[in-house]
């Protein structure tokens, strides 16, 4: 394998090539912690950028009630549809509500959606993948064909159909997204389990007549969960996007919920004249998903060095 230019720096001794002045360590083979940190940041600029953005979004979501300049639901017709100004940085919507405050509160909704969907998808997918990969055979074929069914739908279509069946609401949209996403975790987990199930420590555990359940949970799971974690970090952004799309077409979040996709959707009748009603919530979705994707990319590079320099 040839080394690409990004990975070339990894082969150089850290201490000697360090140009970061004061942080530079004298010993060529024992770089200080700061230098190591600096090197990590230098090599993973986009990861760090994503992490930084995500931290800001997370803090905004956590402290929205204290950070938001206005009550996000406060209706004030005297300031309706005003453009961005010092009083309202992102302008106001058709009910005179402060868009900045609503965008801040919207961060809560989106993060909660992302966490819930991924958690449920993993809770369904990981056990299936574990069992499927560990026992193999007919059980494996049946379980995998079952997941194939869920993957047979074009993206976004299955969540739409499930949400339609359950009745349009934010909770149902989350359930629908989790049901549509779990097959990926089942597949990834299965692959990871299959690659380690013939390891010596697994057969050793078997000869000690440790139960299958215990082997799966105590010995296999801890050694096989990394790919699923990387997948989760990548999927987090997509679930937020998908949920926003569902809200946008009117089958996800409903007023009075504060959700970015819904905000964009509600602005549809007037965004041609009042761009800020759509632009800022849209931007919030974009930045959040971008931050999460950058983290996911970086995580994969760090946890799976084989792919380094290729992304």
């Amino acid at each position: 394998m040839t080394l690409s230019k990004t990975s070339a720096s990894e082969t150089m001794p850290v201490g000697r090539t360090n140009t970061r002045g004061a942080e530079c360590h004298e010993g060529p083979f024992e770089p200080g912690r700061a230098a190591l940190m600096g090197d990590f940041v230098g090599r993973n600029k986009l990861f760090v950028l994503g992490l930084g953005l995500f931290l800001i979004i997370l803090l905004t979501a956590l402290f929205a009630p204290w950070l938001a300049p206005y009550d996000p639901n406060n209706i004030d017709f005297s300031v309706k549809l005003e453009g961005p100004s010092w009083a309202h940085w992102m302008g106001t919507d058709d009910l005179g509500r402060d868009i900045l405050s609503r965008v801040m509160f919207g961060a809560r909704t989106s993060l909660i959606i992302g966490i819930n969907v991924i958690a449920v998808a993993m809770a369904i997918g990981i056990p299936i993948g574990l069992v499927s990969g560990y026992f193999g055979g007919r059980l494996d074929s049946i379980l995998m064909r079952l997941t194939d069914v869920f993957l047979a739908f074009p993206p976004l279509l299955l969540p739409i159909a499930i949400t339609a069946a359950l009745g349009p609401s934010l909770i149902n949209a989350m359930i629908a997204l989790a049901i549509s996403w779990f097959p990926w975790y089942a597949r990834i987990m299965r692959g990871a389990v299959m690659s380690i199930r013939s390891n010596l420590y697994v057969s050793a555990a078997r000869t000690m007549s440790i139960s299958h359940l215990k082997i799966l949970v105590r010995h296999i799971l801890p050694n096989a969960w990394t790919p699923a974690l990387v997948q989760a970090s990548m999927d987090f952004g997509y679930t937020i996007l998908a949920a926003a799309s569902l809200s946008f077409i009117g089958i996800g979040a409903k007023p009075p919920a504060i959700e970015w996709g819904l905000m964009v959707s509600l602005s549809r009748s007037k965004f041609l004249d009042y761009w800020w009603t759509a632009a800022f919530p849209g931007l919030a979705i974009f930045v959040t998903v971008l931050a999460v994707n950058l983290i996911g990319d970086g995580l994969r590079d760090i946890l799976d060095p084989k792919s380094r320099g290729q992304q």
Partner: protein
Amino acid sequence: MKTYLAQRLVQMFFILLGVLTLTFLLSRVLPGSPVEMMLGHRPSVEQIEAARAELGLDKPVAVQFLVYLRDLAQGDLGTSLRTGQPVTSDLFNRFGATFELTTLALTIVIVVGIPLGVLSAVRQNTWPDHVVRTTSIAGMALPVFLIAMLMQMVFYGRLGWFPLQGRIDAEIALDFPFAQRTGFYLVDSLLAGQWEAFKSAALHLVLPVVTLAMASMAVVTRITRNTMVEVLQQDHIRTLRAYGVGSRKVYYKYALKATLIPLLTVIGLAYGYMLGGSVVVEFIFDWPGMGGYAVGGITRNDFPAVMGATLLLAVIYLSLNLVIDLLYHLVDPRLELK
């Protein structure tokens, strides 16, 4: 090849059966929905019973499923509660609109997205690569509906170059009528020699097509780049270089050939994205296709329409994957051995 084809068809049959079971479960067995949707608020007990009998919901689930399959085999997807027409004919009328939209968008993606990915890989870690990579990372984070609204804002609102939505100007369609032969307005209007209608259809196509293309372009470019980078690192390419074979020949004759299979996968993936994305795009641009039909069905409680469209789109997607699988075998005879 034949055994493989047989295996694949059997597999597809079972997946299709699974898909049918799933749509059946979603449309019939889940509590409430169809009856409630038919009757609206506060129906009487008799009304509910009558509706259940009419829909066949009073029969055992297994019987219902068989009836569902029998109806499907006869091409009966139920009657749309919104249009009063059979869902099958509704979908048939809308198929052309979706197909025209996705075909054109796919063409753009193949013609623009794949070369961009190759360029990015060949010029790895130079500025064109950085530009392509940054844009595609950013592009993947952009929701389709935002791209669409941005398009409408700039090209309709500010510049006034293209119409806001729809498939053709209603007046022009009346003044310059043309027969529906292929379902592609561009083709049909040309065949009829209706130049004005062609122009209107083309103008209406631009924004939705570009939106849909942009939405899957990022993924396609990214995957193309990564596969190409991988291929360029392989030993046979290094050997070719060592023998002094020119770059152009290495890239276009040898490297690209090795990326054919992943590229086929990418194209399949892109088409899947488009079928999914078309739902949102058709909704925003008021495009009279299958996706918009499904969404319109949800908000107006037209359950047969939603399930019919879902089923048809899933079948299209499945068949496409099958075709791509078969193409793999045409492109790479080594797969025969496995």
